[in-house]
């Protein structure tokens, strides 16, 4: 039975997997039809006919993860690392009868590589589905507070 704590624990675990660079374990949190979405507009509705920074299915996320470890991935020499500082997630929906689970989490995200360190602020919105007894990510939406600013490389995952 999925309860609110299960959702919160999931989100903390996800951040930990990313911070410890356990990419494959992170991918395993996604449902096969899951998506990772970084909108480029304020309160964006459409990921397909409006521009996004990222809107990726599992195949594309696998490409990213595999690329990070690639022998000839020069933008990862040296490697990037990241740190998630999360506010306690707010449960938006936890309805086992309907199978609807949603949460919204405010965060500060840090990505560093070599001597450089960049910091981003935003909100992560999770939508889950229940598979067996476990939650899987159907949609992870990442809204940056300054989505319209010109960033340098963002190579990891918020």
């Amino acid at each position, binding site marked *: 039975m999925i309860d609110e704590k299960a959702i919160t624990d999931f989100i903390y675990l996800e951040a930990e997997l990313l911070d410890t660079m356990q990419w494959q374990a992170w991918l395993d949190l996604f449902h096969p039809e899951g998506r990772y979405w970084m909108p480029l507009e304020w309160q964006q509705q459409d990921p397909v006919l409006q521009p996004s920074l*990222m809107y990726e299915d599992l195949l594309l996320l*696998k490409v990213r993860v595999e690329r990070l470890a690639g022998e000839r991935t020069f933008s990862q020499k040296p490697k990037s690392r990241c740190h998630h500082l999360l506010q306690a997630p707010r449960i938006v929906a936890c309805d086992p009868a309907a199978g609807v689970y949603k949460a919204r989490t405010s965060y500060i995200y840090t990505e560093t590589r070599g001597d450089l360190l960049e910091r981003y602020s935003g909100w992560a919105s999770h939508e889950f589905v229940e598979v067996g007894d476990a939650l899987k990510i159907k949609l992870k939406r990442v809204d940056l507070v300054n989505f319209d600013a010109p960033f340098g490389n*963002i190579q990891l995952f918020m």
Partner: protein
Amino acid sequence: MAKYGQNADAIAALVREAEVHRDVYVDPEIFELEMEHLFPNSWIYVGHASQLGKPGDFITANIGRQPVLASRHTDGSIHVFYNRCPHKGVKIASEPCGNTGKFFRCPYHAWSFKTDGSLLAIPLKKGYEGTGFGDTQANEGLSKVRNVVIYRDFIFARLSDDGVSFEDYFGESLSTIDNMVDRSPEGKLAVQATPIRYMHTCNWKMLVENQTDTCHPMVAHESSAGTAVKVWKREQGSSTETPMAVQLYGPFMSPYEFYEQSGIRIWPNGHGHTGVANSIHSNYSDIEGYLGQMVAAYGEERAHEILGEVRHNTVYFPNIMVKGAVQILRNFIPIAVDKTLVESWVYRLVGAPDKLYERALMYNRFINAPTSIVGHDDLEMYERAQEGLKSNGNHWVNLRRLYESHEEQDVTAVINGTSERQMRNQFHAWAKFMTMDMDKRAEAAE
């Protein structure tokens, strides 16, 4: 230490037949001179008329470092101004776009201007009576950029009063813009969204050169496009249809022979494009209903002619690149000698199926976003070059691939697609537009 100011010979000496001096990328003085000479002497992209749909609409942009403002006047005409109040210089508009209503109003002391730039009103106007205000430039309102040409809705401006005319400057290179516009069954493009913005810590010219650098994709993008191809092969299972995403990434891994035969065309004044015979955009799957619309609009023969032209990257010197086949324009906006803001715009083909817009947006985020793995590959190379060029071991950057002695300048030619001739073409234009007004200014200053 000023070495280059008003020294046209010293600047010309930075560009050899098939080499350029590293100062063009790393010397802050050269950058200042580019802002003062190269950008004002060139025709620069300001924006697209569809961003100025109704009277009072405005957009802001920079030409070199100078802020400009374009507006749609009540009579439908488009005007470009320097974005500064004639009173004390405050920027009239600070947002990228908006609608100002019937007039612009300066936020500092409320001088107001019609949307054609003329002075409308000044509060407490009697304070200027008998002061000679009528004879000042301020009385004319917002200073106008006089040389503005709107070509098939693309707004270009040249700040210098004297220089090469728009027609002579672009010549036949406009055929890429034509092809992009013609790809709409209605012959019309629309900007419907903000661009993807990506900050690069490198000189702007590295980005421009890279647009026709066909010997880097299979090397630098092995990590991204190569991995995409590899993962798809492994995961595709019984699937017979290649997803749109893999269709977009895959061709980056084409072998040298592919780029060799696809060709490069150069034009006078530093313009040129890759993908003459075919390109990495040639083999995308058809989108349902589109060909039918095109044939209905243009007839069988013309429709195939338009869609058969799949140029890869067209460089419009000095600082934009247009991809007609996927309706993208990249604007390489110089910020500092080692800092460039890249804004990548997508145009929607008016009247065409949504799927085409979806594909163009997807291409843009795959290749041109700060979150793009292809972008990461490229930026890493630019950053390393920006660092490496500080070395004194060798002062020259080598652009000699497929160089033939005594190459003609300012000509139209089609050549082997792995040639670095378009880069040489750009640097010839660079020296020309950097120095064309230098002697004259030196005299004027005396």
